[in-house]
């Protein structure tokens, strides 16, 4: 990797990344540093591009649905839902209303677990590990309910072309409702712990700012866009699945805090409030669950032959926990789709990093990078080049810098 710049000259070049075997989506950062301050940022994603679209273009839609489950370990249902919706539109079939509701319930449970996971990671980056343990412990409740509904904790395998593979039966409602009560009771406590903490406020307020204009121009999505004041939520703007039936509004920071600053703090607020919103959506779904089947066609040979006849193009969209997921599919009457383009939410959000990081300190890198909830954690291995000498910093080292900054601020 060309790090640019002569050794020993200002700005220093600090490469961070690219690969750690424990991470899903490694990325290579190159920071130009002037002392402690970031002057400019460049990054190269795709360190482990899997060519999953290429693989998909050689498989039939029913096989691809299971491939989409495995695109991301956290967005387990988002990709399969977006893909299935695209194929359903090409085939011109209607998904039974009950299946739409099951899809929505699972998608919202996924949002709860994803946001809690993120909240834990964020405070861990700040060195607030007791809150990290709490966030991850309460996350288990949603994971348990997801497992209860779908049979799996991670690769849910619930969505199928034309519906869902498992129904949610009446007997299962009480367990799901217990989970909702659990999160309702927790909500105030969590909000208080995150938002009224002096060190979180010091480290996050006015750091990693992305203005509204920049957010619109850079086409960011999801909580990152909403925290910058862009009112954008596919669930509200563009009715699909059961979301068209729900009474929901996009979560905006100015409605909660009275102002929008577009900083890391706003991103935390948006995600925390969205956990509560998801709880209410699941409640609405359970209250208005329509009766009927959950598959358009339960016999797989019939489903496959219908897929094979389909021709045309369509776009399937879904508001994943991190923002809009979009699948473009073109089919031409063959077994495999002619084109399959996957646009994950981080695909749109990564581009905002250089703007957010500019002018920030090296110790703020972990929390700002984490603040868009990227499908990766970049800061696992850092090499600092100073005067031609290469010092390799570990992920722990960088996190330690961040923790020390918190300590310093607390005095």
């Amino acid at each position: 990797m060309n790090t640019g710049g002569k050794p020993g000259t200002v700005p220093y070049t600090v490469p961070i990344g690219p690969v750690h075997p424990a991470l899903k989506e490694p990325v290579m950062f190159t920071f130009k540093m002037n002392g402690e301050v970031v002057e400019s940022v460049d990054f190269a994603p795709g360190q482990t591009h899997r060519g999953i679209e290429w693989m998909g273009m050689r498989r039939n839609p029913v096989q691809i649905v299971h491939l989409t489950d495995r695109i991301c370990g956290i967005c387990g249902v988002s990709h399969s839902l977006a893909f299935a919706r695209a194929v359903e539109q090409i085939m011109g079939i209607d998904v039974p209303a009950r299946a739409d509701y099951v899809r929505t319930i699972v998608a919202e449970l996924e949002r709860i677990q994803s946001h809690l996971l993120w909240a834990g990671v964020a405070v861990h980056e700040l060195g607030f590990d007791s809150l990290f343990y709490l966030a991850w412990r309460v996350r288990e409740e949603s994971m348990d309910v997801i497992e209860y509904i779908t049979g799996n904790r991670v690769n849910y395998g619930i969505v199928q072309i034309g519906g869902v593979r498992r129904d949610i039966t009446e007997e299962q409602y009480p367990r799901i409702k217990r989970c909702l009560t659990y999160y309702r009771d927790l909500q105030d406590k969590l909000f208080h712990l995150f938002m009224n903490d002096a060190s979180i406020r010091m480290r996050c307020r006015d750091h990693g700012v992305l203005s509204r204009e920049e957010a619109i121009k850079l086409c960011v999505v999801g909580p990152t866009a909403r925290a910058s004041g862009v009112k954008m939520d596919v669930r509200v703007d563009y009715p699909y699945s059961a979301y068209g039936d729900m009474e929901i509004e996009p979560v905006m920071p100015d409605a909660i805090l009275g102002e929008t600053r577009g900083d890391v703090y706003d991103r935390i607020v948006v995600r925390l409030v969205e956990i509560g919103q998801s709880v209410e959506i699941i409640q609405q779904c359970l209250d208005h669950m329509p009766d009927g089947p959950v598959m358009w066609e339960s016999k797989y040979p019939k489903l496959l032959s219908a897929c094979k006849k389909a021709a045309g193009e369509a776009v399937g969209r879904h508001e994943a926990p991190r923002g809009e997921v979009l699948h473009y599919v073109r089919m031409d009457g063959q077994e495999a789709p002619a084109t399959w383009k996957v646009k994950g939410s981080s695909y749109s959000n990564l581009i905002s990093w250089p703007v957010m990081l500019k002018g920030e300190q090296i110790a703020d890198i972990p929390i700002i990078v984490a603040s868009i909830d990227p499908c990766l954690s970049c800061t696992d291995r850092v090499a600092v080049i100073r005067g031609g000498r290469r010092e390799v910093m570990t992920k722990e080292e960088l996190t330690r810098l961040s923790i020390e900054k918190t300590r310093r601020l607390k005095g």
Partner: protein
Amino acid sequence: MTVQILRPEEIVERFRGAFGENVLEAIVKERKEGARKNPATNIWIRLKQEYLKPGIQTLIEISFPHLSVIAGSDLGEEVELVYIFSLYYGVRHGEYMVSIAVRLPKSDLRIPTISDLIPGAVFTEREKQEMLGVEVVGIPDPRRLFLPEDFPEGVYPWRKDETGIPDSMIKNLWQVKRPKERAAPPVEAKEKKGGVQE
């Protein structure tokens, strides 16, 4: 932000009025899901290649759109690029998916960059360059995005002609045998029954 919200048909009219015959195709589709069957609107527009930028300019004049992604297909003689936007976001149930497609002949795979109009487009334009072999003229950052640095030049994974991924680059998992240098598995291999292959 927006003064007046146009109906889908009016957006198509706006394009037809501005570009006339150069609008090759314009379809409005609705998709109804859920119990209440609220409609979601999709607008598919196909323009002649040279009208891509004026087309996007027209869209920006209606309301600044959100560019989701540029999708691309190899159609044999041509490569199609589909610019997928969402328009009027922030209005409850009021967003339209708008796609503007252009087709480029394989003899001249060049398209102007739209990153001067929408800076966020650079990412997806870089991807189209490496995946489809399209040259985005004027792109501010022409480097590769997802493909590794040692990926051969002139191979474009999404192409379906001779520039696509050659068979020699494909590794089929089922063909990969257990590595010899690895320690023996902890469990004894089962006795092979007659007739079972290998």
